[in-house]
Every structure is written in C-alpha cells, then in structure tokens.
C-alpha cells in the first residue's frame, strides 16, 4: 500500500476526484424536478443543506474506518509486539479524531441552518461528543507513559476496549432514539437519504466523495506512520551513539 500511496498517479487521481466532488457538491443546482445531468433533486427536510452530505457523511464514515483500522493494528501489536503496529494504530486514531472533529463542525453548521442553532444535544451530537471524550482520553494516557513498550501495550488494550462502543455510538444509539438528525427513530421526513432520496448523479458524487476521502485518509495515514517510525529510529540511533 505504501508504494501505491506515494505514486504520482495516486496523488493525481486523489486531487482530481476531490476537486470534482467540491465543484459538483457545491456548484450543482438543487431543483424540484431534475432534468439535466448536473441537477440534484430537492430533498424535503434538507433542501439546499443537502450539499453538506458530500463532506459531512464521508468525514464521519472515515472516523469509523480510522478507529477500526486502529483497533486492527492494536490487536496486531498485542499479537506480534512490533512497535510499528502501535505507530500505525496511533496515527489512525489521530486521523480518526481529525475526521470526528470535521464531522462535528460540518454537522454543527448543518444544524444551524436546518434546526436553528449549532448544538442541540441531539442523540447523534451527544454520541459524537462521547466519542471525542473517549478517544481524547487515549492521548492523555499516552502522554502520561514514557516507556514505549508499556505505552503501546496499554494504549492497544484501551483502544480495543473502547472500539466496542463505536458501533453503539455511531450506528445504534442515534437510530433507536428520537432526535432531529436524519435517520432518527421518529424521522418521517428525510432519512434514509442516500438510498431513497438521491438521484443517480447525486449518488455518484456521494460515492466519489467517499472514495476521495478514503484515499486522502490512506495517504495521510501512511505519511503519519512513516514520520513516527523515522523519529523513533533517529532517537534510538542517537541513544546508542551516546
């Protein structure tokens, strides 16, 4: 994967895909009855705010993927005790936090225009806030331990345990409780949006956005893990030289 991510064609495809998603997602008009290929349908309950789907949903989706990858590498670390796996897990958590924060910011902007204020303590907002606190605690845990092996082992165990809460907070709780977010238990208006309310070209841009965001995540992940590994090797070499 490392070589693919560093290749020029990968970076060019990512740049073009994301640029296309931004132009289509923000620039294409939303109309009552789309007739042209570049028109998006009017979704009751979302209206013009529907554009944020192309950025908000991939952000929260990638946060879940990042936390899943971190858990996989945490399990790998506990099995093989290779510090490289811990570095990959921690970099993925850092990126997961970035994407959770992005999802929260884009969601708050959406909430301001759709529901009247930036924050409502809706089940979806509450669950994302809980996730931020849970994963934020991992940074405190890691910064409190100096020994690299101990730090890696404890954070791997913590990471595996807390990942159990992720499906509950992201997929279950907001869907079984009444709330304002599309897809809530009492939602009769807009959710589920992706399968039933989008037309073909809107779905295409949405899936292209998911691919572009995933490619961006993969690139950032490889860069982050690589820089962590280099820093570790340089420090180790310096330690032996002294």
């Amino acid at each position, binding site marked *: 994967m490392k070589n693919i991510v*560093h290749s020029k064609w990968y*970076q060019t495809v*990512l*740049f073009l895909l*994301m*640029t296309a998603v*931004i*132009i289509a997602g*923000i*620039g294409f008009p939303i109309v009552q009855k789309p007739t042209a290929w570049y028109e998006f349908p009017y979704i009751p309950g979302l209206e013009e705010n529907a554009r944020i789907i192309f950025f908000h949903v991939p952000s929260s989706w990638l946060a879940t993927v990042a936390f899943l990858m971190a858990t996989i590498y945490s399990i790998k670390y506990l099995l093989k005790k290779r510090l490289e796996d811990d570095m990959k897990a921690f970099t993925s958590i850092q990126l997961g936090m970035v994407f959770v924060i992005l999802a929260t910011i884009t969601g708050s902007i959406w909430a301001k225009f759709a529901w009247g204020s930036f924050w409502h303590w809706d089940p979806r907002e509450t669950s994302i806030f809980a996730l931020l606190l849970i994963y934020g605690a991992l940074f405190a845990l890691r910064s409190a331990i100096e020994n690299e092996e101990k730090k890696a082992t404890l954070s791997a165990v913590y990471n595996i345990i807390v990942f159990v809460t992720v499906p509950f907070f992201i997929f279950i709780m907001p869907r079984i409780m009444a709330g304002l977010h599309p897809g809530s238990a009492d939602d009769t208006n807009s959710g589920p949006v992706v399968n039933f309310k989008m037309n073909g070209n809107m779905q295409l841009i949405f899936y292209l956005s998911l691919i572009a965001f995933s490619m961006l995540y993969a*690139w*950032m992940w490889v*860069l982050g893990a*690589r*820089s962590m590994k*280099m820093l570790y*090797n*340089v420090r180790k070499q310096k330690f032996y030289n002294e």
Partner: protein
Amino acid sequence: MDFFSENALYIVMVIVLLTWGGIFSFLAVLDKRLKDLQREIKEN
C-alpha cells in the same frame, strides 16, 4: 455587494477549492521531504 450575495455558493466553492489546493500541496511537499529524509538516513 450584489455580486457577493448572488454568487455566494460559487464564492464558497472557490474558497473550498483553494483550501483543498493548500492541503494537497502541503501533503505533497511533506511526502517528498519524508522520502528525501528517509533516503538520507539510509545513506548515513
């Protein structure tokens, strides 16, 4: 002022595109720097 209110969506689009361009350039430069650094460490 009419220009800004009538074309608000396109202005947002341009700002987001510029931001994306900035993020992409930053990552591309970082990628190159890391590659060079790794090569130098290997040589030494």
